[in-house]
């Protein structure tokens, strides 16, 4: 870390001149800036926090810090899960949370231009009022769109609509040197050189700071309906997924849930939503499915077809969430999994591997089996439609160091198996600080060399978000 300079009084003065009234130093900095939502990867306080409100301010800060060799860690809403927004080398945290304006809609080209600090929830609600849907739907609705783009966040609707990457048309980026560049355009095709736009997406704030985004919208579906399929075991539940796809049914979301996590979330919400038994059989796994379409009649046909596939595949029964209240209840139970886990857990780590959909049951059973070798509890759930699983290691009574040691051993096996099955180590949360060694192991030295080379090209002084993704300190 010695390659970086400390923040000097002169630099603070220059930052205050560039971003008047929005520079905090030392004792004035809120502890929140030292971590994201996964503090297990370590906390670190910045020396300075700057809250920018414009691209020009971001550029001025980057230029100053680049000249002074002071590290800068960009930050949105701090909802990440891999320690990506933690200023591990101190220096400046550059928050774009105040850049939260929805700038304009172009309804003919169906795009919206936003500042990168706009929250996903705010855009989703605003677009809905105008009859549009912004399809990416990560579980954390209060993340910034800049953060979503930086991790290529996915979410529940990815199975039909794809991930954040598929909705980014253009962006304004401030490079670590302070240069401002525009990438992409409001067009649907491009064959115009290397796609720097796509390189920025998923770069986790290591290549540049995204300040503005042009995002694609689609017309909001007119009708939505959800099904809850009940299964006696996880194998039958997961085996349904490829059958649904082959039947040309295109659910908007397709989530699997095991019994234990459903009970945990229901007890957290104080509301029992899903049946635990069906005609004498225990229900051990659930598939939560949403379809969207142009009319209720169309959806009725769709769910009738889907039900044939589900029952054929071994579902005990199928519940229909066809009213706003029932839909809300069904999805509330699913959406609060992470919150329910966090509320009940002192020590928490997680992984978000992605495996081929036909390997999900095999993989989850493997995870449940190896979990027996450790002192922590393992809770998992995930997006059955795209093979993306969230696996949580939870303990309330382990020694923190012992917890970390055991989790590291567990993760090595879990990631090893995912790779062996043809999967990847992160589907949507990113690498950040917490998953670097696993990435290096999985992709190998040549891929790592290419990534490091790209990092050097964008950031010659290596000041932007050091110690993340591919740049080991």
């Amino acid at each position, binding site marked *: 870390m010695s390659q970086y300079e400390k923040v000097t009084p002169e630099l603070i003065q220059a930052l205050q001149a560039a971003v008047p009234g929005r520079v905090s130093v030392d004792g004035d900095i809120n502890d929140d800036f030292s971590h994201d939502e996964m503090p297990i990867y370590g906390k670190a306080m910045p020396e300075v926090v700057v809250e920018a409100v414009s691209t020009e301010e971001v550029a001025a800060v980057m230029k100053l810090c680049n000249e002074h060799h002071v590290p800068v860690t960009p930050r949105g809403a701090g909802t990440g899960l891999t320690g990506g927004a933690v200023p591990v080398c101190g220096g400046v945290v550059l928050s774009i949370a105040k850049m939260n304006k929805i700038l304009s809609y172009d309804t003919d080209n169906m795009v919206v231009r936003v500042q990168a600090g706009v929250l996903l929830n705010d855009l989703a609600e605003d677009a809905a009022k105008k009859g549009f849907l912004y399809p990416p739907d990560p579980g954390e609705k209060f993340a910034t769109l800049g953060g979503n783009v930086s991790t290529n966040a996915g979410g529940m609707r990815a199975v039909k609509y794809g991930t954040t990457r598929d909705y980014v048309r253009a962006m304004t980026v401030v490079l670590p040197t302070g240069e401002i560049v525009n990438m992409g355009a409001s067009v649907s095709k491009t064959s115009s050189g290397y796609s720097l736009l796509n390189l920025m997406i998923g770069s986790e704030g290591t290549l540049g700071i995204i300040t503005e985004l042009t995002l694609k919208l689609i017309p909001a579906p007119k009708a939505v309906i959800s099904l809850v399929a009940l299964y006696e075991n996880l194998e039958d539940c997961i085996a349904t997924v490829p059958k649904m796809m082959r039947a040309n049914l295109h659910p908007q979301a397709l989530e699997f849930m095991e019994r234990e996590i459903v009970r945990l979330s229901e007890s957290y919400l104080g*509301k029992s939503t899903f049946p635990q038994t069906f005609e004498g059989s225990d229900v051990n796994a659930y598939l939560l499915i949403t379809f969207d379409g142009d009319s209720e009649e169309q959806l009725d046909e769709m769910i009738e077809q889907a039900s044939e596939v589900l029952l054929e595949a071994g579902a005990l*029964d*199928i*519940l*229909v*969430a*066809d*009213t*706003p209240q029932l839909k809300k209840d069904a999805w509330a139970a699913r959406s609060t999994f992470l919150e329910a886990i966090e509320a009940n857990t002192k020590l928490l780590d997680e992984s978000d591997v992605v495996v081929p959909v036909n390997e999900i049951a095999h993989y989850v059973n493997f995870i449940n089996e190896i979990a027996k070798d450790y002192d922590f509890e393992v809770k998992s759930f995930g997006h059955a439609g795209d093979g993306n699983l969230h696996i949580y290691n939870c303990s309330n009574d382990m020694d923190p160091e012992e917890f970390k040691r055991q989790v590291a051993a567990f993760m090595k096996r879990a990631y090893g198996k995912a790779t062996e099955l043809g999967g990847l180590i992160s589907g949507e949360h990113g690498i950040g600080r917490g998953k670097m060694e696993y990435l290096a192991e999985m992709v190998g030295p040549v891929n790592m060399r290419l990534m490091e080379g790209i990092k050097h090209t964008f950031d010659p002084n290596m000041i932007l978000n050091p110690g993340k993704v591919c740049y080991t300190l």
Partner: protein
Amino acid sequence: MEILVCLKQVPDDSVEIHLKPGTEEVNLDGVTPVVNAFDTYALEMATRLKEAVGGSITAITVGPEKARDAVKTCLAVGANQGYVISDPTFEDADTLGRSKILAAAIRKLEADAGKPFDLIFCGREATDRASGQLGPQLAEALGTGVIVDLVDIEQTDAGICAKQETEEGYRKVESALPCVVTVNKPAYDPRYPTIKSKMAARKMAIPVLSAADLDSVEPGKPTAHVVKVFEPAKRQAGVKINEETAAESAIKAVDMMAAAKLL
């Protein structure tokens, strides 16, 4: 047991609703019509009772023909048959008028079936107008007893025993049958339809009864008049207390409440 559940189709109460700017007209564009939440609780309670003691449930609503969708929803979660009572002359009816229409419809259905309803369920109020008067007015029109604000019910030798929620707690009330009951939120939630029950409900006929089908119904002119429709005033933002420590914040909060003479 022959059970009747009265229901009302209302705008989805989980979305924020506003007036059309500069008017007293409620803007319901894009708001999904749903079955009144308290009526869904009533139907669930009725269905559990039916499952325990046997019998049949009839769902009924007074409203436009499109209120059929509301009845259809109920047919998938416990109701065995359903009717819509619809007539242009009923459009202006207030709660008292609706109770008279419902009473006439109930007499008609009882005459057709050759047997009376034992128990008539209503929600405690509708989430749109929230007058909370329909149940008692219907009991008056039918000449039966009424128990309001139920959260549980069971059959007894004498008729029913109901658990009634009051401001102080709960009260057990017994009644002979027939009887009208209004239902508050019970400890359980309404069930989900299953794919089979939903598909079966889709195929069921839902007859529409008009004024001509009922025997001399006279809803009368509305007795209540709306003086003004307006949106509630926006609440002022609260005071944020964020001192160095939680203890200091607590002290400041207490000081502020003392200064405002709230303690």
